């Protein structure tokens, strides 16, 4: 009996030695808890497309430093509670590098759990300042633009606008509230008056009461922070009520590449923040857009697709530098690191793990016979990214 145990140990030991090199080539497993159903399903599908595209692209070249990239996606319904459950499932199945989640509330719900799961989270769409503020930590990163970066763009733009009275229409979730708050601040700085500040429940179908209030408030300008189906419902109904023609409209994540497709001419002339555009003229971006078009029948990558692809670029480079797929080793490589992305060489700040990136502003117009966001202003990374506010107390690694 004892001999057989020793024999078993020897066999297992030999196996471990033999599989030594294979273990170091452990696959890079990326978990994507994202909205596949509900109000943000459109955004979730964009995130998944970008993650899959990046993985396929790098796997075709032999993987990340010889490591195959594996993806698993689970539906989070854009609900914080569900996102936590699904992220936990992914992490415990070994998909410990999490990304592609839509709603800020989801990211904020996942953040405190990362240590328990031994996972890291790389946000590519969450905008709430809290994620790299109060909720920051060694395992949380943001490769997309936060609200503060959007606000830095809005402030100078708003000051120049001729409209004096503004209304805000935003989603009643972490991101919408953040965006509304920073717009109020920007309005104060630009000596504009806020005549209505409205927050609609996540997943609102009937916007009529809100539209009535906007109309009766006497607003000349309207700031919209709605995304996904909320954005489409609001825009369609606002058009019917005639406010899109009478009031000057701008927003964030409101008319994006994808909602423009659904809205058509309704979206024409709406201004807004453009976090990423496929028209950006850098060699890296051009190569990305060309490859994307080839895979997706001539479709160009949308803003969320571009930003999520950037997240994957950062993850891949961090894994290469860490020479490991262990979440904390990858996190260490990201902490304060500089990465080659489709928006150029960008740094992830060590203070709060926020990426320092340029931001853009523009409107929906016609170009090459197609309606699309057109960039009118480019704001450099330094100007677009305000210094850390000090709300983040980064724990030691």
């Amino acid at each position, binding site marked *: 009996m004892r001999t057989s145990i020793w024999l078993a140990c020897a066999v297992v030991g030999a196996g471990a030695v033999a599989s030594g090199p294979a273990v170091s080539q452990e696959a890079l497993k990326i978990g994507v808890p994202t909205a596949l159903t509900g109000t943000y399903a459109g955004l979730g599908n964009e995130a998944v497309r970008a993650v899959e595209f990046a993985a396929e692209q790098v796997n075709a070249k032999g993987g990340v430093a010889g490591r195959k990239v594996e993806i698993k996606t*689970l539906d989070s319904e854009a609900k914080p509670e569900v996102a936590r459950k699904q992220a936990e499932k992914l992490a415990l199945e070994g998909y410990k590098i999490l990304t592609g989640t839509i709603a800020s509330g989801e990211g904020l*719900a996942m953040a405190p759990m990362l240590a328990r799961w031994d996972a890291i989270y790389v946000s590519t769409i969450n905008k709430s300042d809290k994620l790299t503020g109060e909720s920051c930590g060694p395992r949380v990163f943001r490769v997309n633009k936060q609200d503060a970066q959007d606000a830095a763009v809005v402030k100078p733009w708003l000051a120049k606008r001729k409209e004096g009275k503004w209304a805000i229409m935003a989603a009643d979730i*972490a991101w919408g509230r953040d965006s509304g708050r920073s717009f109020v601040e920007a309005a104060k700085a630009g000596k504009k008056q806020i005549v209505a500040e409205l927050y609609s429940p996540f997943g609102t179908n009937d916007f009529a009461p809100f539209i009535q209030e906007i109309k009766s408030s006497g607003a000349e300008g309207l700031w919209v922070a709605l995304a996904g189906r909320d954005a489409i419902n609001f825009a369609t109904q606002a058009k019917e009520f005639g406010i899109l023609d009478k009031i000057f409209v701008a927003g964030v994540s409101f008319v994006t590449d994808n909602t423009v497709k659904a809205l058509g001419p309704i979206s024409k002339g709406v201004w807004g923040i453009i976090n990423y555009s496929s028209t950006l003229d850098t060699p890296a971006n051009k190569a990305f857009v060309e490859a994307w078009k080839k895979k997706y029948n001539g479709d160009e990558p949308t803003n969320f697709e571009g930003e999520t692809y950037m997240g994957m670029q950062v993850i891949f480079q961090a894994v290469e530098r860490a020479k490991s797929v262990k979440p904390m080793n990858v996190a260490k490589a990201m902490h304060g690191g500089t990465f080659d992305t489709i928006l150029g060489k960008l740094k992830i700040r060590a203070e709060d793990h926020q990426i320092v990136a340029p931001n853009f502003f523009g409107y929906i117009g016609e170009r090459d016979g197609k309606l699309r966001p057109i960039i009118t202003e480019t704001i450099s990374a330094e100007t677009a990214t305000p210094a850390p506010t000090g709300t983040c107390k980064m724990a030691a690694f």
Partner: protein
Amino acid sequence: MTAGDAALEEAAPVRARRASPVVAAALAAAAIVLGGVFAGAVQSTLLMTLLTQAIITAILATGVGFLIRQNGVVSFGHAAFYGMACYTIALAMRHGVMPIEAAILLALVLPTALAFALGLVIVRIPGVAFSMLTLAVGQALYEFATKARHATGGDDGLTVNLPARVFGVSTSLFQDPHAMFVVSWAVLALVVLALAAVAASPFGRLTAAIRENEERARFIGYATVLPRVLVLTLSAFVVAIAGVLFTLYNAFVSPDVLHWSLSGSALIMAIIGGPRLIWGPAFGAIIFFFAKDMAGDVTEHWQAIIGVILIVVMLLLPVGLGGALARLWRRGAGHG
């Protein structure tokens, strides 16, 4: 249902009633020990965390099922009691107004008291109207939690800052899937045991009599409102226990814990499992949880699969899967 089946159904409670408290307690103790052994044997953290969540949901379904069993009414609003327990702890911890032990106590007392006060008004109302009222109460609380952003964090929910120790036990124990499985499993076993004892008691028989024919029970001379109120109160208390376990385990609450869809899921679990049995809803909850999990891995349309299961159970097995299982067992025992 044949006459023989009906007789069998009738005979079952009688037999349960005859089971001595010693045997019942021994059964519960055995179940708890088995749970501990099981947790020790299973390595997979993933399986344990899924099971722990399933068991906590099973306690919720047991509360909902008990109301159906004893009062013969269906609640669409039990998430109100569950969520209220969750938010009580979350808010108490957020504002640091009391120690965690007091918060847990309050989280059990508040929903129970609400159910009692509410019960005095709504148990007199029959059938669908009762269900609609419970739905209204549940949704009112849900809307409040969503709108009162400053207090509750709105749709984004609240992270619950638990202290390092709860009742002298390290908090990390309540958040460890293996340990929490044992805790929740033990609580479920005790809840089922206690509810079975209540159902077999004179009080349980009285409420069953009221359920069958309220007028006749009143005519015989029984007060018929208070017993029903007490059943509702007890079922809310059970549900509140589930809420407390959920909050300890997850350390996070969002308005989802108050939403009617949670009440609805609990109801579906109870019906799949068979609310005529005390343990039926818990059994249904575990089937529901894993069916949802497996279906959710395959397709995003997991609701359709649950829907099909529900239709099949309601059409072919009105006693629920638990009921069918119990019948098979009895038949097997009869032959043996």
